[in-house]
């Protein structure tokens, strides 16, 4: 399922995947499972996180994905910044990795005016 065009303020009802309490965000393509696996490795199981301000970063990684950056909101209300890259030294000849992962202090203030953060909060039923 594809989220239709980001913010649609005039839409009478929120898209299905933005319903408060929904199981989780819809991430399309091969990056979705990779992000889910890496979030789980950080202690964030499915349904407990929602990425926002996700951005393609132009670097083709050996595993086939493009490098990505973004933030993730957790069900506890915490926010972490991350950068998806490639660890050539990982077992099996390499693997995807968050080679940058940082907590954001006072996310409610830091992202107060970000529409994508507010959408993530709605998505996790925090709004």
């Amino acid at each position, binding site marked *: 399922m594809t989220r239709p*065009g980001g913010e649609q303020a005039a839409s009478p009802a929120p898209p299905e995947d933005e319903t408060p309490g929904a199981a989780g965000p819809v*991430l399309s393509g091969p*990056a979705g499972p990779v992000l889910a696996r890496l979030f789980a490795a950080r202690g964030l199981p499915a349904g407990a996180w929602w*990425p926002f*301000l*996700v*951005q393609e970063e132009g670097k083709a990684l050996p595993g086939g994905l493009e490098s990505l950056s973004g933030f993730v909101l957790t069900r506890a209300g915490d926010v972490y910044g991350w*950068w998806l890259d490639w660890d050539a030294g990982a077992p099996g000849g390499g693997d995807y990795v968050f080679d940058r992962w940082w907590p*954001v202090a006072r996310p409610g203030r*830091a992202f107060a005016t970000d529409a994508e953060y507010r959408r993530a909060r709605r998505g996790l039923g925090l709004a």
Partner: protein
Amino acid sequence: MTVTVLSRRWARPGGVTGRWRWLAPAALAALAVLAALGLAGCDATRAAPPGAAEAAAGSPEAARVARDATWSPGQLQAHFAKHGREGGHATAQAYDASARETIRSGREFGYVDRTAHARRRGYYDPPTNRFTSVTEDGKRITTHFQPDTGERYVRGLVESTYR
């Protein structure tokens, strides 16, 4: 034009009586002063925003985004660490300036992030192969880099409107 009309009126025989004739040069002088002040005021307004000269190359909206958009917490440092060398930027400040310059000088287009389906505004400057992306509302700079494949990269973004 106002000066011209007044000049003709006072120049007309019988247009102005003798005792008011002294007003003509005074009015003209006052108008000249006002006109000069007005022009000076316009110049000062144009000179006020930093980077206004470069803004002339793009739309007023692009100039606004270049001036007001911010990086999310930690993102400028992360992006500079990852992409800074591509453009030979010595500091995060230089990298940030390059991102904003690309917004001012580049071609604006729209696209959708492939993974999260969020709409983005892109700015691509072909002569320098620099690309900057911002959120749909123009409030956040989300990245800045030099694509390996140049224009092909921005054309290939999902729902890219780049022409």
